């Protein structure tokens, strides 16, 4: 890889007018409170749900099931009904959908049964179409899917649409519900195993948990309130499932953030799934570029909410800031890969912004600097 080029930054701020999420621990306020209490949302669940298999750590909002409509339908439509505003999906109010799997439990059920009734729920566009019709939204909707950086893309693209004056406001809606299709895949890769995730902990074997997550944000160009101040995307394209050696990809994704003028006093919500190699690279790179900034991950409790993690965790970060206490890295303990990793909660009042990071297969990186208010 050439050394001179950097991932370009978007630096035109956009306001987060409204934001919310749900995790296995509840809504944003409930989830933050539970994290601050050190509660772990993950529980041992058979990897194939109703069809059995080894127990793996999953943080679900309902039991996995082969049903029509999918087990997540009522949860998602209930959440979407609470999103403020009207006219979503119209010409000036596009919706950016983001997800790694769009809840395609239907594809697994179809593969097992060859029952055509699952087909409408077996594609990303099928699931979104059902939701759009149910909500009475328009057709100006965009579907992004890039594994675990998906929500970063939706937020990035929303900012672009606002900057290019293609929209007055943009709804970003992300949902990832875990089904056997996804759980079995990560289990086959051996990173979802019987172990319990401990992000950034220096230990013998790595492991992740998976979790359900749904979140939304409404973005516009007004000046007051929390703002996304900078965004960066970078893709190593080094290997499908491993990063370039020595954290070169993490460095490239983040180094443009380091010289930002007046970045504020920020803390860092890392990606931190619980895998060893990526966790070490992330923590060490962050310590090198931003020494002394507190680093946390919440995936040891919430599980990895996959393509939705960036938006779910953004909602939690802003809620934690509002409530005054930032949760630590639940599930981890010393020794960690960096002295900056915080395992205990800390006071939000000392900080005015947060750097939020996401990584994915293919060496994909997404980063955003968000001011609290």
């Amino acid at each position, binding site marked *: *890889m050439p050394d001179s080029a950097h991932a370009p930054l978007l630096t035109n701020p956009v306001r987060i007018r409204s934001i919310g999420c749900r995790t296995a621990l509840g809504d944003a306020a409930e989830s933050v409170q539970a994290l601050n209490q050190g509660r772990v949302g993950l529980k041992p669940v058979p990897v194939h749900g109703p069809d059995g298999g080894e127990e793996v750590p999953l943080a679900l909002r309902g039991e996995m099931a082969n049903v029509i409509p999918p087990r997540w339908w009522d949860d998602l439509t209930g959440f979407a009904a609470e999103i403020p505003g009207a006219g979503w999906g119209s010409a000036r109010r596009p919706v950016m959908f983001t997800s790694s799997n769009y809840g395609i439990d239907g594809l697994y059920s179809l593969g097992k049964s060859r029952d055509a009734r699952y087909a409408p729920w077996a594609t990303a566009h099928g699931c979104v179409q059902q939701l759009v019709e149910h909500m009475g939204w328009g*057709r100006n*909707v965009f579907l992004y899917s890039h594994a675990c950086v998906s929500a970063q893309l939706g937020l990035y693209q929303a900012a672009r649409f606002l900057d290019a004056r293609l929209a007055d406001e943009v709804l970003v809606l992300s949902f990832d519900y875990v089904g056997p299709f996804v759980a*079995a*895949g990560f289990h086959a*890769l051996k990173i979802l195993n019987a172990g319990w995730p401990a992000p950034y902990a220096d230990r013998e074997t790595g492991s992740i948990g998976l979790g359900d997550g749904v979140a939304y944000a409404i973005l516009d160009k007004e000046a007051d309130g929390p703002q996304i101040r900078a965004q960066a995307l970078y893709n190593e394209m080094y290997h*499908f499932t491993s990063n370039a050696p020595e954290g070169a990809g993490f460095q490239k994704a983040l180094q443009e953030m380091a010289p930002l003028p007046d970045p504020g006093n920020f803390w860092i919500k890392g990606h931190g799934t619980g895998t060893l190699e990526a966790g070490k690279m992330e923590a060490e790179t962050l310590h090198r570029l931003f020494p002394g900034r507190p680093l946390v991950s919440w995936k040891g409790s919430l599980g990895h909410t996959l393509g939705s993690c960036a938006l779910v965790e953004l909602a939690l970060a802003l809620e934690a800031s509002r409530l005054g206490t930032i949760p630590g890295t639940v599930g981890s303990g010393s020794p960690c890969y960096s002295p900056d990793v915080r395992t205990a909660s800390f006071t939000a009042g000392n900080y005015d912004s947060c750097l939020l990071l996401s990584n994915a297969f293919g060496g994909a990186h997404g980063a955003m600097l968000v001011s609290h208010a």
Partner: protein
Amino acid sequence: MLKRYIQSFHSVFLDPQDESGSLAEINANLPKRAARRMSRMGMMLHYLLQDLDLRLDTTIVYGTCFSESSALEKYLDSFPHASPTAFQTSIHPGGIEQALILDNREVGAFMPMAGSRTLFLQMLKVALAAASEEVVICGGEEKGGWLRDFNLAYTSSFSFAMRLGGDSSTAIGELVWMDGDEPATEQIPELEQAVRDLKDVRELEMGGPGLGRLKISLK
């Protein structure tokens, strides 16, 4: 109105009667070991992208409706002993990642999209909104097996790549978005038809109520 200049447009349609033969023709230089692991989409995209100059400030917009159909079928058929390789390959946007990872071609803003009827229109709109001058729009579909019985895979294999840039003097065409100037009725071709029209007719206009109007013209 938003406008970008088209610098190149190329497409590949595999012969439905002899997909292997078509692939062999376009991938003569592909290492055999790598080719064995790649999907048809990955191979088609590698062929189309290999000579394009991709920089870190090139925005890539990638779209496919059904993604890696063969890998999806293999993965689903592997249950209850889920295949890690098929899972990995089936993940969106596996096709283009295969093409780029083969040559370790790092990229910056990369927008993999999904969708159906309005996918191509939305991809072009995302390209027009890109922060960078250089944009590559690419995608395609691959012919499925049993998933076709459920309309969950495509009936043919094709791929395309269009490069946009700021230099009008080297342009072979234009992409123009007319926001607010919408056709009264929806005119949106399927992705394959849109690519065929661009290849053969060299002109394409599409849009609909609430979706705007877009025009592509190629020399």
